[in-house]
């Protein structure tokens, strides 16, 4: 799996087929051919629009810095995996991309503007087990929440909103569970419902916080398929995960995090044993042939 470097960004670029729009941050020049995988200043071929720019950004809760010196770019229609141990700051980075945690140094640009202003085009998928399973709310009501931003204050969902919600639920394979109470579904199904809520919002950037934790094989497959479909439509995806296999399978780029950035670039080139060892503190890794297994997370 940890193989040569020539796939990654170039393949994703072809899939996007972006119109010749203004390229933000393309001035850095193409990064192709850097065999070791560039850690910073990853700029793709010109003609693509950056969905996410981290420019030496540091993020802090009050006076306590959580993440420092993040640097990298994610383009439209690309997926980036956030990889790192528990407490590395993956969830904090996702909250910073939503503008819920302040950037204290450097800059984070989301969809060409500040995280605050970009929010209307960003959808966030929390971990299903953070939500109260006893809450009296149906699956279709949860999915409809994805439309609230478009519906606006004081209004009720229109027929078009209901169609979007139904289509999103169909896409995650749970249309027949629409009337069930959210908490009666399995963990994996609840995670898919939350993904459907995000799809219904028609985002340009999708943020997923550990969507594969404790999820069954069917749900994992469905989530990966839905991510691919969104990428095909030009939506960028940020997904935090412990699963390196999923990063290889579904993500064009990875960002290795543990308080600092230990690598940001095309997946296969960046997920090297050395970098993983540095990210996880050296002792939490096991090497089997060319496969890297994280034994402790």
């Amino acid at each position: 799996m940890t193989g040569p470097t020539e796939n990654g960004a170039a393949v994703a670029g072809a899939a996007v087929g972006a119109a010749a729009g203004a390229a933000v941050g393309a001035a850095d020049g193409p990064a192709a051919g850097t065999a070791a995988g560039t850690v910073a200043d990853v700029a793709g071929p010109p003609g693509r629009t950056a969905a996410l720019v981290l420019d030496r950004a540091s993020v802090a809760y009050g006076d306590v810095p959580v993440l420092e010196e993040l640097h990298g770019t994610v383009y439209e229609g690309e997926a980036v995996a956030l990889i790192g141990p528990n407490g590395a700051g993956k969830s904090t980075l996702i909250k910073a991309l939503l503008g819920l945690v302040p950037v204290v140094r450097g800059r984070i640009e989301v969809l060409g503007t500040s995280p605050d202003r970009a929010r209307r085009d960003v959808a966030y998928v929390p971990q299903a087990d953070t939500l109260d399973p006893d809450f009296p709310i149906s699956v279709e009501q949860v999915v409809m929440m994805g439309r609230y931003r478009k519906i606006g204050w004081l209004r009720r969902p229109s027929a078009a909103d209901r169609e979007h919600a139904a289509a999103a639920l169909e896409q995650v394979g749970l249309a027949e569970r629409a009337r069930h109470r959210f908490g009666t579904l399995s963990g994996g199904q609840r995670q898919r419902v939350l993904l459907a809520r995000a799809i219904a919002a028609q985002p340009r950037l999708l943020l997923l916080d550990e969507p594969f934790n404790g999820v069954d094989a069917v749900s994992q497959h469905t989530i990966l398929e839905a991510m691919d479909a969104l990428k095909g439509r030009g939506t960028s995806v940020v997904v935090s995960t412990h699963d390196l296999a999923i990063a290889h399978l579904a993500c064009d780029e990875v960002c290795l995090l543990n308080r600092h950035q230990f690598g940001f670039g095309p997946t296969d080139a960046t997920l090297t044993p050395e970098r993983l060892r540095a990210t996880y503190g050296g002792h939490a890794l096991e090497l089997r042939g060319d496969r890297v297994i994280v034994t402790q997370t």
Partner: protein
Amino acid sequence: MNWFDSTVHRAMIEAATVGALGGVVGVLVVARRLPFFTMALTHATFPGIVIAALLGVDLYLGGGLFGLLVVLAVVALSRGRGQDFTAATGIALSGGFALGVVLVSAQDGFSKDLTAYTVGDILAVSTGDLAATGVVAVGVVLVLILLGKELLLAAFDPTGASALGLPTAVLDFVLLALIEVTVVAVVPALGAVLAVALLVGPAATARLLSDRLAMLFPLAAAIGVGCGVAGVWVSTLWNVAAGASIALLVGLAFGLAFLGSAARTRAGRAAARRLATATGS
């Protein structure tokens, strides 16, 4: 003679209104797991009402303002080091109630007044009180209709609501304010100790009967109205305290619904077993 001139008729209308109001707001109280906080609010409005009575100003206003102070005190206390929301709520509950008792005991006719404040006096309700309760009920339902979906999202998934750009702190305050005005409307009828019955009981009962949010509001309101009116009727029939009769009927309705759902579902049976162990030990 006007229909409203009858004490019993006025009491029944009041009981029906506070029953519906308590039922509807109770759905949110139960969904957000705020019954204990609500109980603290009902107890803590008590000194406010006593102070208002001593000063000769409006009881609703006194209770309401004092309740607002308690909301702020709970929020401030729970932000302290090593404190949590439940501990702060417990302190506010006992502290508020004790203050009310001290104030009442400083007056003449202590025990009679204390009874009226703690278990209510719904038969003493005036036409003006009826109008005030009605206005509160209409206002609360209006806010729920207008802000229902945002309040729902903020209750179910606060981070998701912030991610959408909703002002979650404002929405939380709106919810607590809705509970507070409901408490102020219910306390004169049922008293500081029994008011929580109408704010938790009908909604908790409805929750046992249905999983669907759209059903919970009318169901809880109907249970609240039923218990309220029946409670007044029982109290005139046997000449017993009206507020306590209402609270007892709410408890009876919950008990029946609990037994019904326990018999229906395996989960219910497991819960009943847990309760049996808890009460048996």
